[in-house]
Every structure is written in C-alpha cells, then in structure tokens.
C-alpha cells in the first residue's frame, strides 16, 4: 500500500514539475554582446591572443578589419617547430579570408607525428585542428584510437572536451561512437546549483568549451546531444551570468558557446524579454516583446502566441491563443483592445516555428495601468447630535473649495468621494487613499486613511473631539489634501481639496511644536551598581567568631584531662622534618587564603608535601617498628608473667 502511495505522489509531483519548464534567468543583452566584441577586438600582442581575437570574433560573425595586417602578424610570429604555434596560426588564418600559411614537409611530419598515444590530448587536438585547417590529410582512425587512449589516461574534464572538439574535425566515416558517449559522461559530471545553474567545478571556461565542443561534434555526426531542455537552459544561465570576463580565453570560450547555441541543428534556446517595462495603458496599448537567440539576434522565423492571459486577482481568462505581430524585429500585441481592467495579468506565451527552440514557453506578468478620476467629492460638516442637517459642498477636481469649513468639538467633518477609471467608469480601489491635514502655521501634519464601503464609495470622517491627541489639541486652519496612489495608476493625485478650521476645547499643548527629533542626545542613563549586601554589625560578628573558636579551648582541656603528653617525642631528623613540613603546609594554607592562587599553591604544596611525605613515611615506619616491638615485648610478658598489661601504648603522641 505505501509504495503505491509513494509512487502516485511522485507521479503527481513529476507532472507538476514538468509543466513548469525552466526559462533562462541570465542572458546576454545587446550591450553585453557589444562588450564581448570589444574584449575580443583588443589589439593582440602575441599569436595566442591573435588566435583568440580573430577566431572569437569570427564566431560572433564579425570579421577583422585589417585582414592583411593580421595575416602578416600571424606569419611573422609563427614558430614552425611548435605544434601550439602552428595550431594558433592555422586556425586564425582560416578565419581570415585569403590568408595562407606556408606549409613544409617538416611541418606536416611534425603534426602527423604528434598524433599518437604519447602526446597529451591537448597536443593531439592542436595538431589535428592545424592539419584540418591547413587542408592536410590525416588518418582519422589513428586519431580516434589515440584519443581513446588519452581519454582513459587523462580522466579530466578539459582533456575530454578537447577530445570532443578534435573528433568534430575527423571524417564522418570514422568510428566516433565511443567519443560521442563521452558527452553524456561529461554532462553527468556537471554540478547542479540550486536547479538554476549547471557548470563544471573547473569553472566557466570549461563549461562554455564543453557546450561548444558537444554541439560541434553532435552537428558533425548529426546525432542529438544527450542534454535535456532544462539542462540546456541551466547551461545558458551558467555561461551567460558573467558579464565581464577576466581573460581573453574566457571571452573566447563564451563567444564559442554563444555561437554554437545560436546556430546548431538541435537546440536553440530562446530568450524572451519585454521591451521596456511589461506594462500597457491607453496611451501605450501595445505589449512589445523581443524574441532572440542567445546572441541577441532576433528570431525572424518564430511566431509568438499568447496561449492564455488571466488576471492575477480574479483568475478570469482574458485572452486565449492570440498571436503577436512582428514589426521592425519586435513582436507586439494590442492588449488594450481586449479592454482589460487595470491590474496585473499573467501571460503564458509560446514561441513556435522551429523544432529546435528550447525554453519556448514563457510566463510573463503584465501590468495594465489606467488613469483615475475623482467623482462626487462631497464635503460636509455634521453636527454630532444631528439636530442641524449637514451642509454638503461639492468640489470638482482640481479646484479647491472656496469657503473653508469650520468644525469644533460638537461637529464632525465628513468627506465622501468615488474613484473611477477615467475611460471605462469602473470603480477603483487603489492601494493608497490618504487624507492629509497640514497646519500651515506650525508645520504639523496628520494623515488619515479613507476607507471604501461595500459599494466602493470612499468615506472619511473626522471627529474633532476623538482625534484631538493626533492634533495635540492645536486649533487653527488646516489645509486638507487628498492623496491617491497605486502601482497601476498613471496619474497619482495630490489635491488640496479645502481648508478646514478646527477648534479644540482645551488647549493644553505648548504654543510652538517641536519637531519630533530623533537624533538629539537622549537623557543619560545612570547605571545603578549592585548594592553591597547589608552586613551584620561588627559586634555580632566578633561575638560569633569567639563562640566558634571556643570549642578549641574545650578540646585542649579535655586532652589535658585525658593525659595527652609529648613524652614519646623522639628527636630523630625525620620527626623534626615531618613536623616542620606539616607546619609549613598549614602556613601555606593561610598564605593561599591571603595571597596566592591555586596554581602557585599547588606548586609549593608539591614541594613541601613531598618532603613531608618522605619524612612522615620514615617516622611512621619507625613508630610501627616500635609498636610491634612493644607488642612482642608485652606478649612475652603476658606469656611469661601472666600479667594483664594494657594493650597499646599508654602514652599518646601528639602529631
């Protein structure tokens, strides 16, 4: 039972997840592409940077201005004895039109000799690329076996990427199946960061080179690479999240990846972005979308369709299957023609036209703004006991009421109005509807909120007596402002409606109002230190000290009565040393109490204690010998004389 439940919930979860496909969160904008071009167009200093610049720019579709100058530079910096140099020169010259590198037999032999199991994958890649760029024949099967051997020896990511890149230069008849499988193995090595990014731990350059190598090999053998759509999008996020590049090689790798992702036979990621903010209004009724590939080139073969558009608040569908029209490279839709009410709408857009498109379902949030108009603004002063009928004055926006209104503690000031959409007349409830009363003399202002009732009619009532604390009971003329604002309103309103003269009963407040300052020094806090505990009077303490010491006297008296003496005190050195040591230990205790800490005491105690121990050991041993001798003696007496002699010793030694 439980496994089935688990399976069922897993199925439901996977269905839910599949319906929400990933869309790229990072992509290159036109400025980023321009920056990439600028980085690659920097003047080159050596052959390697010339290779990166020329070939990188050719991948972006840009050709170097001064082809002849570049060709001369390449030829003059070429070192025919180095495979690497030949590789850079050959590749760069192939990107330039009409640039020839002189090839000798030695060059060709050198390149062919590098194709073996003993060279590194990088060397094999460089020699095969050079041979192919220079138009020289090469034995594809040999290359394949050498690559396979190198892959198993050098198991790192960069070597395998170079092997993939090399394989895309070989003849299609060669057995590239095993090398093709490496794409899947490498894809498994990618790190998934938060479900958004997919990259190698070796970094951005490795990830970008992997993408370009995988797609060039897949295109070469015409087999779809084993990368799922979500993985492709995650790779796009990783590669294009960095908008400024540390080195020329990094910029080159990003350019290669961008070129391969925008132009390969299998997967073309689609980037959809709104032109400007995704908002429409009566003045701007068209929703404009830019649909491009990763290199910001517009996809003219695409057709863009709104699958569904529904209001976020009410979830009611407004549009279904509405097409966008292409105009000047931008796709636009007249959303206001469907007469949507103001608010936010969730759009689900599909881009079709090419089976290679990846991430071609996009969710967009579109805002519809409108202008607000205030209707039926009625101001009145109502008596609390309602004996006198209210006098209502209507004010038209944006004029101000001619007469000012008087309200004292017996009266309430009331205001009602309606907020409607200017074009459709539909009632609106914006987020911010505030009534602000500003005292021009003192600069004081009080803000209240006007709330709508069930019929969307806004009401504001000011009870002078109830609200006197907000006003600090200061009477005077207050200018009344109405503030209306909302994210979907194009015309926020600040309207000085009228002047209100308020009279408060008790004027306790001070004449001038100090602005509530937050940044003045606060009153000083006096710290109350812990009071020392109350001690008892000294007399009591002294009395009890005497009382506690008194039993010692009792002890001495009792001992004297019992007949304690030191008659058995032997003056042997161990005894003296023991007593001195013991006295020293007691003295150390006193010194510990007054001066020392535990560590020092332990140090001294170790010294004195060991001495005392040795002396005491000796002394007690001697005593033990004496005692056993006495027992033997008294035993002999007993056996001999039959006298009952007192066991043990008569004399006690005070130790």
């Amino acid at each position, binding site marked *: 039972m439980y496994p089935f439940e688990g399976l069922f919930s897993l199925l439901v979860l996977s269905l839910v997840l599949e319906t929400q496909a990933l869309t790229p969160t990072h992509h290159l904008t036109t400025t980023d592409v321009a920056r990439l071009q600028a980085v690659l167009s920097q003047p080159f200093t050596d052959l390697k940077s010339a290779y990166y610049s020329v070939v990188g720019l050719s991948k972006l579709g840009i050709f170097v201005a001064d082809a002849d100058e570049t060709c001369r530079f390449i030829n003059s910096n070429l070192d025919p004895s180095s495979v690497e140099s030949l590789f850079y020169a050959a590749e760069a010259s192939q990107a330039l039109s009409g640039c020839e590198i002189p090839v000798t037999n030695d060059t060709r032999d050198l390149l062919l000799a590098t194709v073996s199991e003993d060279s590194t994958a990088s060397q094999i890649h460089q020699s095969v690329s050079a041979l192919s760029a220079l138009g020289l024949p090469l034995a594809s099967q040999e290359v394949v076996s050498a690559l396979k051997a190198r892959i198993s020896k050098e198991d790192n990511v960069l070597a395998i990427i170079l092997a993939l890149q090399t394989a895309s230069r070989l003849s299609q008849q060669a057995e590239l199946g095993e090398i093709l499988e490496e794409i899947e193995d490498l894809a498994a090595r990618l790190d998934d960061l938060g479900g958004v990014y997919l990259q190698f731990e070796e970094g951005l350059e490795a990830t970008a080179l992997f993408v370009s190598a995988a797609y060039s090999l897949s295109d070469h053998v015409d087999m779809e690479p084993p990368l799922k759509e979500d993985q492709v999008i995650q790779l796009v996020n990783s590669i294009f999240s960095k908008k400024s590049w540390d080195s020329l090689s990094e910029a080159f790798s990003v350019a290669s990846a961008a070129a391969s992702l925008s132009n390969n036979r299998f997967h073309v990621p689609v980037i959809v972005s709104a032109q400007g903010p995704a908002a429409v209004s009566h003045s701007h009724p068209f929703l404009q979308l830019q649909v491009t590939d990763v290199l910001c080139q517009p996809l003219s073969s695409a057709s863009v369709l709104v699958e569904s558009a529904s209001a976020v608040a009410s979830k009611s569908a407004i549009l279904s299957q509405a097409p966008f029209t292409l105009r000047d490279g931008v796709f636009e839709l007249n959303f206001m023609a469907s007469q949507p009410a103001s608010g936010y709408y969730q759009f689900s857009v599909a881009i079709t036209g090419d089976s290679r498109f990846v991430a071609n379902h996009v969710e967009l949030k579109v805002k519809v703004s409108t202008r607000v108009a205030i209707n039926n603004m009625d101001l009145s002063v109502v008596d609390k006991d309602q004996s006198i009928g209210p006098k209502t004055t209507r004010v038209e926006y944006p004029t101000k009421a001619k007469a000012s209104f008087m309200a004292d503690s017996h009266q309430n000031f009331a205001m009602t109005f309606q907020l409607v959409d200017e074009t459709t007349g539909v009632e609106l409830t914006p987020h911010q509807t505030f009534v602000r009363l500003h005292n021009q003399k003192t600069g004081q202002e009080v803000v209240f909120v006007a709330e709508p009732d069930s019929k969307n009619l806004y009401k504001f009532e000011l009870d002078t007596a109830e609200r006197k604390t907000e006003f600090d009971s200061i009477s005077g003329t207050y200018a009344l402002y109405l503030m209306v604002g909302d994210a979907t309103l194009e015309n926020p309103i600040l309207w000085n409606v009228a002047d209100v003269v308020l009279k408060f009963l008790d004027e306790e407040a001070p004449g001038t109002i100090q602005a509530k300052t937050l940044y003045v020094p606060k009153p000083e806090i006096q710290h109350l230190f812990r009071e020392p*505990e*109350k*001690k*008892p009077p000294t007399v*009591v*303490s002294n009395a*009890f000290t005497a*009382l*506690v010491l*008194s*039993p*010692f006297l*009792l*002890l001495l008296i*009792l*001992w004297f009565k*019992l*007949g*304690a003496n030191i008659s058995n005190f032997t003056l042997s050195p161990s005894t003296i040393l023991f007593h001195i040591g*013991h006295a020293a*230990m007691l003295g150390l*205790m006193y010194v*510990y*109490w007054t001066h020392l800490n*535990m560590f020092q*005491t*332990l140090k001294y*105690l170790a010294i004195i*204690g060991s001495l005392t121990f040795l002396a*005491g*050991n000796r002394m*007690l*041993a001697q*005593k*033990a010998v004496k*005692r056993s001798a006495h027992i033997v003696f008294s035993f002999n007496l007993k056996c001999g004389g039959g006298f009952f002699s007192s*066991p*043990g*010793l*008569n004399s*006690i030694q005070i*130790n």
Partner: protein
Amino acid sequence: MSNSVFSVISRFVEEYRSSTPNKLKMIDAYLLYILLTGVFQFLYCVLVGTFPFNSFLSGFISCVGSFILAVCLRIQINPQNKRDFLTVSPERAFADFLFAHTVLHLVVVNFVG
C-alpha cells in the same frame, strides 16, 4: 520509662569510661570539638544570615569533612576492628588521615574567599 533511659545512659557512660582505650578517647574529644565548631557556625548562619554564603559553606564543609575523616581514623585505629583492616596499620591510617585533610583544606581555603 525515663528511668530505663537514664539507666541505659549511665550504663553506657560507665562502659565508655572503662573499656575505651585512651587513644580513642582523644579522638572522641577531637570529634566533639569539630561538632561544636560546626554547630556554632550553623547557628550563626541561622541567626544572623547567610551573607558570605560561600564562606559559610566552606567552613561548614570543613567541619563535616574533618568529622568524617576523624571517624574514619577512629574506626581504622580501633583494635577491636583489626580483623576488618588487616592491610591497614594505624600508621597508614594516620597518613591517609593527613593526606585527606590536605586535600580537604585546599578545597576549603579555595572556597572560603
């Protein structure tokens, strides 16, 4: 009733006076001294207050500890208990008594503050 109690007490005192060796009586006097000292300290605490509580605890623990160690010494020295302490000679008992007192006083002086 009180008669029997009184007679038991007087009998006990008589036995004590006659049959207890002098050494043990010395130790008993010492025990009484320690007891009284502890009692007076406790009396002070109850009557006047626990103000330096750590000092009270230290002094009281000292009395209790000394009492216990002296009782141990008395038990080990008592010749009637010789069979229970075959490996412990009276000298050894006394040495243990001194060592334990050193440790006790170290702790007490540390705590008295």
